[in-house]
């Protein structure tokens, strides 16, 4: 084995990550971006030699689930190293510093590396009660976000809360929670990595892409990277063949469910949700919701807690008939009602006419005078 040529490689070896594992990680990243073979070398080269930017991680109104997801990214051991080597100067959950010392770290990054660091935001930003619902070090989340994100080279919103408001912003949104794009007006470079929680592999990949090419990957209309959010769950789903065949789970635990058939009728939101879960899976590609027999709940979509519920029904209810009502049942009976009403109406009309004239279209008397008819 050749001598490590750079600090980075020495660092990897010290942590027991072989060159082979590292190259495997770079290939996996290239595959994720859909890049050709040569890209692997390019990624490896960039990771080894480019200066690592500073990163600050802000936690606001959420459950810290994205941090959990990120810390449990175990498969690419190399990824951990890379994320370590990106200098994480502030992270409320994992930093050693506390109190004023910690806040001082954040302040010094914002002041000394203005426009050069990456801000990662986790959690929504409450705006109600003048921001009093979430304060860190005596300052409101909105104040911190505007200062830190406004001076950053780029902001990555991880998780649906930071991207679109998520669960804290669900109706009736008592704290006036907003995603970063709304809470920090005029933010320049923002990437939303929505999902509940964010898939650590997508976060790693976004950072690797940024390190390699010096810019962020192509984004969709909601500022999400296309490599991760470009396809619907449904289009890459492993149960798609059952969908096309018309074979559906009708009830939890029925034969179709045990056979692993399509969860469409159980309210799976895969057709209207976008992420790469079917491809990269979760927890080292151990599994993902549909693989373990539960439909997608569309956690990466804006307002999913309001729009994707009920999670076990195809569509939201009909206003006035309750959240669990079925719009198609309401519509069907409304249509039956309209048909009956108009049938009755027509029959009454013709019946009245029949009674009124004695016989339809058989006049006994001269035609009666109606409106003037003719010209205006």
């Amino acid at each position, binding site marked *: 084995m050749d001598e490590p040529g750079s600090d980075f490689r020495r660092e990897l070896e010290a942590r027991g990550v072989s060159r082979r594992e590292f190259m495997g990680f770079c290939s996996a990243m290239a595959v994720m971006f859909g890049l050709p073979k040569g890209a692997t070398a390019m990624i490896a080269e960039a990771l080894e030699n480019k200066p690592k930017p500073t990163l600050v991680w802000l936690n606001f109104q959420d459950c810290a689930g994205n941090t959990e997801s990120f810390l449990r990214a175990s498969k690419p051991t190399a990824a951990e190293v890379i994320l370590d080597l990106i200098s994480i100067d502030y992270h409320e959950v994992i930093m050693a510093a506390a109190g004023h010392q910690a806040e001082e770290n954040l302040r010094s990054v914002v002041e000394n590396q203005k426009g050069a660091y990456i801000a990662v935001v986790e959690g929504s930003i409450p705006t109600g009660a003048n921001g009093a619902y979430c304060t860190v070090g005596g300052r409101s989340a909105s104040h911190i976000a505007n200062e830190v994100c406004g001076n950053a080279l780029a902001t990555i919103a991880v998780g649906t809360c930071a991207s679109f408001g998520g669960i804290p912003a669900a109706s009736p949104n008592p704290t006036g929670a907003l995603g970063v794009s709304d809470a920090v007006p005029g933010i320049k470079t923002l990437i939303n990595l929505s999902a509940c929680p964010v898939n650590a592999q997508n976060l790693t990949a976004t950072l690797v892409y940024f390190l390699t090419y010096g810019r962020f990957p192509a984004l969709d209309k909601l500022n999400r990277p296309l490599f991760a959010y470009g396809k619907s769950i449904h289009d890459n789903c492993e149960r798609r063949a059952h969908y096309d065949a018309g074979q559906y789970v009708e009830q939890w635990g029925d034969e179709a469910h045990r056979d692993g*058939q399509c969860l469409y009728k159980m309210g799976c939101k895969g057709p209207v949700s976008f992420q790469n879960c079917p491809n990269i899976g979760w927890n080292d590609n151990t599994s993902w919701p549909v693989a373990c027999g539960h439909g997608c709940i569309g956690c990466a*979509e804006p307002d999913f807690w309001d729009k994707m519920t009920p999670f076990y029904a195809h569509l*939201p209810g009909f206003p006035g008939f309750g959240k669990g009502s079925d719009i198609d049942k309401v*519509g069907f009976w409304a249509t039956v009602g309209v048909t009956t009403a*108009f049938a009755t109406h027509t029959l009454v009309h*013709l019946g009245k006419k029949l009674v009124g004239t004695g016989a339809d279209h058989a006049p006994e008397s001269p*035609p009666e*005078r109606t409106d003037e008819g003719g010209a205006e």
Partner: protein
Amino acid sequence: MTPPPAAAVKGGARPQVSPRRRDVEGIERVYVWDLLVRMSHWIIMISVFMLAFTGIYIGEPFLIPAGPENEQFVMATMKTVHFYVAIIFALTVASRIAWMFVGSYYARWHQFVPMSPRRRRDVFGMLKFYSLLSKEPPLNVGHNPLAGMTYLAVFGLYLTMIFTGFALYSVSAVGYMQMWEFLLPIFGGAQMARWIHHLAMWFLLGFVAHHIWSAMLVSRVEGMGLIDSLFSGYKFLPKSWRNRDE
């Protein structure tokens, strides 16, 4: 009552003429609906029924095939039929809308918007007729103004169906149909687009129910061959009515 002269009724069965009209001098056969109007009417009817059937299946798959999935293709077939019929439907609606501006007189947009005072008055006359307050509907050569306004709303439903459908199709589309992606945020995401698509379908089916019954009723009461005219293009009108709307 003088029977209408046979000469006026060339090429068609003698129509029944409502007795209350003063046009005892007879009736004549007037070309009201041009070919495109009639064709688009029936194409839209057939495609709406096909789209509703396949669409209801897609929303709530009620046929459960037996056997291994590699021998079945029920949902995929339904979706394919739905998509192809949707293309026919969208093109027909588009041509009919264009025809509102370049078509023949009774196909034009002013038949759908009550522009003249008489047509505005007839809206209320028609409402009175429908609410059983009067026995006689106001008579019009083309659409009655209330029907015209209803059809305008129905065209709104058509466009809602088409655009929510295109937006949902763009999710998995390959090629130029991806351009409709921009509609998704306007509808509030794909899930809401779905919901609107369902809602608009039930409105449309409700309209169909109303339309069929009302067409039968009005056709019977007017006695001008309303339903027949959607096949032949001709209505049987009292003489001197030909230019009533002009």
